[in-house]
């Protein structure tokens, strides 16, 4: 395959370059460096093998614009072809580009496969390594000795593996040296990294110094903080003192006044406690002492008067001496009177009893028809035994009586209830029972309900009949629906007609376009058919609906008729049970309901009559049973009387009477005897007493004429009583006198006590006299006023001092500086405060700066960043070292292969040592020298033992070489070398 024409549309520096009709033998491109020779070579390779990523990156897009790519015209044994290839530089992933291989003979266009066959399936690697020998290789080969040339030739042959071992090794070396090399102009990657590491390490050292500074500053900042705290405390103290001095200056006058007052107060010395001094108490004592003294005098006067009155009383001492005996006898006075009364009473009782006894005996004897003499013995006849039988008989009788009373009461109630019931029934004027009336009402109600039901059913039947008529009419279809069906049907007929006419006449009549008339006609016919079907469908549907509805109504009609029949049968049945005279069932029902309501009102009354009647029956049964009990008890009673020998007619309460009277008679007799003996006893006692009283009168010297014992005794008693009143009067005087003496003593003691208390009052405060005591009080009043003034001033001072200061502080201050020195001290303190504040500001400022720097240093993340970077650099160093090792190992492997190749797989270099005739070598050398631009019109080639180039003068350059028929390259490469010069 030979390239005949080159057309570069755009590639690297080339734009619109055309190389036409290249030589059949050899075409050499030459030019200055950067003229574009390599670009042209790469263009040719691109045309043949496509745009590799390297070429795309380097040569596209074209520098001077234009479409990237171009074409080559080639002649091959199979014909002449144009290889055209362009590429879009943005499509990096497409090395093929737009390829077209056009056959010049028939213009057919082929693709990649055809190009590949034109290139004999040689890919770019083989082409580059075998066929594409660059100028550099040729020059080197010519300039080198046999061994070096062999190497180059070896390099060519070792490219048979599609790779050049030398290129690979060279590339590895380049990569290795990029990582770690000894090129002094540029730093390798590892050197760069090493430098970077050193730099970072230095920076870390510097940053660590900053850390130390942070520690130092933080500590200093803390120290400053502590100093500032001390200063603040000092300042507080000083400001406090300043304030105190100010206050002291304000209140110094009051302070001095108070001090004067204190001195005055102190001058009073120690006074007794004010609480111990009480003038009112002293006055009270004085008043009481005067009152007590007056009372003593009064008592003394009273005593003298009592003594006088007591002496004046007339007392009979003889009579008074018999007082005891008289009183002893006088004490018997009630007894004597009692004795006399008893004697009289006993006499009358004895008389009464005797009369009663006679009456009783007589009365009983007559009643029992027994002899009076036996009456006294009745009690002894065991009457008591009869008592229990009698009592039982009486109890039975009593129960019978009670039952009879209750029965009478019940009977009365029954009559009452019956009367009331009879009255009520007669008032209502009916004889029916409640049940009869209830049943009657129910039947009436049912009769009315049935009538209403029949009416409703009749109404429903009429409605249904009307509906059925309506449906029957609808079955014939109403005019409206029939019209709809008709219209649709007629429309269908019209469409069908149109369609038919259209189809048959091909639209001529209807003015349709001939071509479409057939379709339109069919469409009309189709629409007509649809309308016909719709009308038929509607008719069928509506008729079907009417029929279903009619069936439904007829079924309902049957049900209604059956119900009507049943209701009428039932109504007739009910009517038969009711009287035939009823015409108005409603009115009759109301009447019956009112009667039923009345009947219901009588129900409780009837119940009560029934209950009373049953109670009456019950009572009658109980009376019968009780009568039998009474008869049994009566029989027992009579048997008991017979046993006691008493008449059977005797009733139980008479037996009690007999018992009581016989007891009373016995008691009367016994009592009569007792009374008689008692009366005799009393009479005896009375006579002895009279003797004693007479003797006493005689001894007392009192004459007395009256013989009545009681009068005499009363007289002497009166005399004694008179004497007693005198004696008692005297005793009272004596008692009063004594009482007054006691009071006198007490009054005197009170007087003494009061005097003592007054003295103690004085003694408590140490006063010898009352005046002295009063003097203390006066002093206290004065002192109090002074103290009040002092306290007032103290309050003012305290208020001025406020909560922050106490008096002791002020006192200390005033003691230290005095009132006059205060102002000077205030100025001193102010000056100190000012100085301390200045110092504080300075420290604050310094501390603020420190804190700021500490904060800045503490927040500085540079060391972290640098450490991070250092770490990355060290990792990268490690990675690069490993990569370098890998590349070195790879190189070592390749070296081994090279040695093997050199020792065992030497290339066939005999091509260089064949026989080549000298004249043919000369022709080839001259052709090559001429081809690379040696102008043989301005120079010549000759033979010498050693090749050289010499310029004799302008336009005369001479080169020499030597020919060896057994070693081709010596002359050929020598000429090219010299021609290059």
């Amino acid at each position, binding site marked *: 395959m030979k390239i005949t024409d080159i057309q570069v549309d755009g590639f690297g520096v080339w734009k619109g370059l055309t190389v036409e009709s290249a030589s059949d033998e050899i075409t050499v491109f030459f030019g200055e460096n950067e003229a574009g020779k390599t670009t042209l070579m790469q263009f040719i390779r691109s045309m043949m093998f496509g745009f590799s990523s390297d070429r795309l990156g380097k040569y596209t897009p074209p520098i001077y614009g234009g479409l990237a790519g171009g074409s080559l015209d080639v002649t091959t044994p199979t014909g002449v072809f144009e290889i055209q290839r362009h590429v879009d530089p943005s499509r990096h992933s497409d090395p093929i580009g737009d390829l077209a291989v056009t056959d010049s003979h028939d213009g057919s266009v082929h693709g990649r496969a055809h190009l590949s066959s034109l290139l004999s399936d040689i890919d770019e690697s083989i082409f580059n390594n075998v066929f594409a020998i660059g100028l550099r290789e040729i020059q080197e080969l010519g300039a080198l000795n046999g061994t070096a040339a062999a190497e180059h030739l070896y390099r060519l042959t070792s490219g048979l593996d599609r790779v050049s071992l030398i290129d*690979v090794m060279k590339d590895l070396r380049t990569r290795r040296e990029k990582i770690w090399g000894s090129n002094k102009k540029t730093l390798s990657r590892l050197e760069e990294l090493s430098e970077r590491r050193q730099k970072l390490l230095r920076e870390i050292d510097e*940053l660590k110094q*900053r850390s130390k500074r942070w*520690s130092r500053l933080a500590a200093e900042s803390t120290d400053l903080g502590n100093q500032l705290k001390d200063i603040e405390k000092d300042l507080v103290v000083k400001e406090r003192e300043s304030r105190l001095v100010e206050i002291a200056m304000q209140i110094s006058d009051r302070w001095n006044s108070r001090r004067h007052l204190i001195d005055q107060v102190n001058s009073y010395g120690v006074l007794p406690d004010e609480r111990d001094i009480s003038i009112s108490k002293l006055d009270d004592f004085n008043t009481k002492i005067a009152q007590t003294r007056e009372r003593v005098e009064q008592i003394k006067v009273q005593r003298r008067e009592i003594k006088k009155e007591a002496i004046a009383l007339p007392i009979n001492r003889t009579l008074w001496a018999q007082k005891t005996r008289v009183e002893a006898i006088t004490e018997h006075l009630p007894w004597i009177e009692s004795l006399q009364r008893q004697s009289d009473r006993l006499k009358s009782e004895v008389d009464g009893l005797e009369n009663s006894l006679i009456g009783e005996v007589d009365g009983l004897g007559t009643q029992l028809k027994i002899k009076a003499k036996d009456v006294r013995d009745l009690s002894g006849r065991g009457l008591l035994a009869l008592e229990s039988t009698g009592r039982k008989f009486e109890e039975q009788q009593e129960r019978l009586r009670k039952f009879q009373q209750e029965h009478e009461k019940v009977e009365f109630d029954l009559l009452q209830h019956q009367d009331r019931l009879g009255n009520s029934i007669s008032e209502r004027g009916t004889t029916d029972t409640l049940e009869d009336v209830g049943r009657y009402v129910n039947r009436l109600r049912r009769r009315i309900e049935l009538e209403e039901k029949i009416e409703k059913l009749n109404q429903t039947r009429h409605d249904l009949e009307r509906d059925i008529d309506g449906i029957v009419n609808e079955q014939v279809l109403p005019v409206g629906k029939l019209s709809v069906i008709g219209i649709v049907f007629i429309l269908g007929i019209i469409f069908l007609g149109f369609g038919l006419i259209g189809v048959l006449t091909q639209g001529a009549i209807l003015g349709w376009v001939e071509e479409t008339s057939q379709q339109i006609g069919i469409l009309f016919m189709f629409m007509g058919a649809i309308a016909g079907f719709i009308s038929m469908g509607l008719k069928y549907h509506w008729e079907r609906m009417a029929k279903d509805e009619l069936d439904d109504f007829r079924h309902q009609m049957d049900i209604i008729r059956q119900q009507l029949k049943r209701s009428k049968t039932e109504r007739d049945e009910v009517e038969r049970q009711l009287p035939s005279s009823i015409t108005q069932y409603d009115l009759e029902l109301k009447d019956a309901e009112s009667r039923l309501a009345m009947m219901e009102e009588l129900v409780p009354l009837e119940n009560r009559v029934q209950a009373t009647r049953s109670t009456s029956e019950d009572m009658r049964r109980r009376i019968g049973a009780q009568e039998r009990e009474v008869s049994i008890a009566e029989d027992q009673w009579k048997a008991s009387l017979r046993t006691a020998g008493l008449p059977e007619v005797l009733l139980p309460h008479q037996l009690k009477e007999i018992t009581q009277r016989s007891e009373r008679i016995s008691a009367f007799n016994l009592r009569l005897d007792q009374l008689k003996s008692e009366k005799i006893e009393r009479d005896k006692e009375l006579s002895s007493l009279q003797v004693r009283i007479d003797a006493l009168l005689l001894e007392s010297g009192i004459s007395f004429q009256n013989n009545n014992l009681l009068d005499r005794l009363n007289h002497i008693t009166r005399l004694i009583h008179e004497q007693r009143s005198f004696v008692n009067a005297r005793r009272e005087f004596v008692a009063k006198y004594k009482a007054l003496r006691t009071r006198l003593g007490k009054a005197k003691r009170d007087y003494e006590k009061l005097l003592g208390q007054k003295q103690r009052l004085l003694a408590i405060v140490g006063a010898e006299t009352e005046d002295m005591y009063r003097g203390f009080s006066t002093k206290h009043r004065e002192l109090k006023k002074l103290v009040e003034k002092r306290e007032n001033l103290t309050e003012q001072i305290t208020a001025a001092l406020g909560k922050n200061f106490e008096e002791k502080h002020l006192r200390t201050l005033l003691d230290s500086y005095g009132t006059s020195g205060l102002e000077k001290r205030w100025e001193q303190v102010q000056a100190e405060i000012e100085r301390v504040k200045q110092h504080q500001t300075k420290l604050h400022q310094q501390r603020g700066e420190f804190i700021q720097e500490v*904060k800045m240093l503490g927040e500085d993340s540079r060391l972290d960043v640098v450490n991070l970077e250092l770490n990355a650099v060290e990792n990268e160093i490690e990675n690069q070292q490993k990569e370098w*090792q*890998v590349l070195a*190992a790879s190189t070592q492997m390749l070296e081994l292969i090279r040695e093997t190749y050199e020792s065992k797989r030497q290339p066939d270099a005999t091509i260089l040592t064949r026989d080549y005739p000298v004249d043919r070598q000369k022709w080839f050398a001259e052709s090559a020298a001429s081809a690379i631009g040696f102008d043989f019109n301005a120079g010549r080639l000759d033979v010498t033992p050693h090749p050289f180039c010499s310029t004799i003068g302008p336009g005369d350059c001479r080169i020499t070489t030597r020919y060896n028929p057994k070693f081709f390259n010596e002359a050929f490469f020598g000429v090219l070398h010299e021609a290059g010069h």
Partner: protein
Amino acid sequence: RGLSEIPNHLTDALANAPYLAAQKVFDIAIGERVDFLLLAGDLFDSDSGNARAAAFLLNQFQRLAEKEIRVYWCAGETDHPDRWPGSIELPETVVTFSSSLVEQIEHRREGKLVARIMASGFDSKRRTAENYGAPDNEVFNIALGHGEFEPNSLTGNNIRYWALGGRHKSSKLEKTETTVAYPGTPQGRTPQESGAHGFNVCRLDSGGKLRVQTVESDRVRWLPQKVAISEQVKIQELKNELGERALKIMTDTTDQVILCDWQFTTNGDFNPRIRSREWKSELLKWLRDEFGRSDRGLWSVALTVDSPQNLPLEWYDEDTILGEYMRATGRYQSDDSLKLNFHEYMPKSVDGSLTQGLNQMSELTRVEILRRAAMVGIEYLAKHKEFAESASED
């Protein structure tokens, strides 16, 4: 650590992450009004000479002190109290502990004893758990320490909760009588410390039952991603898949910067293309451009395609340079006595610091280097064996 390049927009986020994570610990302590805060050592590295760390801690301690929240701080390996700047006083509420013995502190709330803390700083002699015994179990006993303990010894002793430091990754062991917790660091620092990081908030309920809640605090999170791909994968398909995964990660973690190391495991016939530098750098660039340009995004740290243990055997038999290369690396991989002579390729004058460790490589490093060297050879010599991205067209 573990990053070989720091993108500018993430520099601050990465540098500040440990502080922000720690800040969250203190914020939660204040917000939750905790009784006390337990710090189990290695809060900062005193050798780093970083004032920011000390200043930060001081500020946070003062914040807690204002709220009357006590801090119990036992030292780790790098933050012994003796190395705290002497001129700067810690607030009174911060209690530090000796490293030479176990100290006992009683914590009271309004005068009432609520917890007893047995604490000791890091001890290089490995103090045993028995030293932390509490006198009784009448109150809630806590052991506070730093370092590793024999797991079986962390029981009994009347301790209800072991608050331990010294492990960067969180771990928790709940036994019947006690809970052993290593909450880990609040912020993961290396690719090995991947996943979420945080701290524990412990609560005692009314029944005396301990509830331990882990709170996430990290602001930067390492999330290695293993992706299984086909050797013949098309780059666009892979981008779609990686894009979906990246978006899911970003949706799941809104508060963190994600540092992602993509590791591809492959299946199918060996394809040199997906191991070429161009292919990987294109993918990495795309990932970074798509997801890594915001300060709350997903930064792809690296992208590696696993090399299969065995390359296609027929390559070893080829009578080509590739075959020669494969056989040569195979010999070196199987025979340790064959030395790798790096000195021959070193520059004549070099920085001494850079040559350190180049010759003294571990066996593991040698294996890795040779495997990567094999890949370099394949990159150059097996281009023709690459599977095309798309089918050829006529």
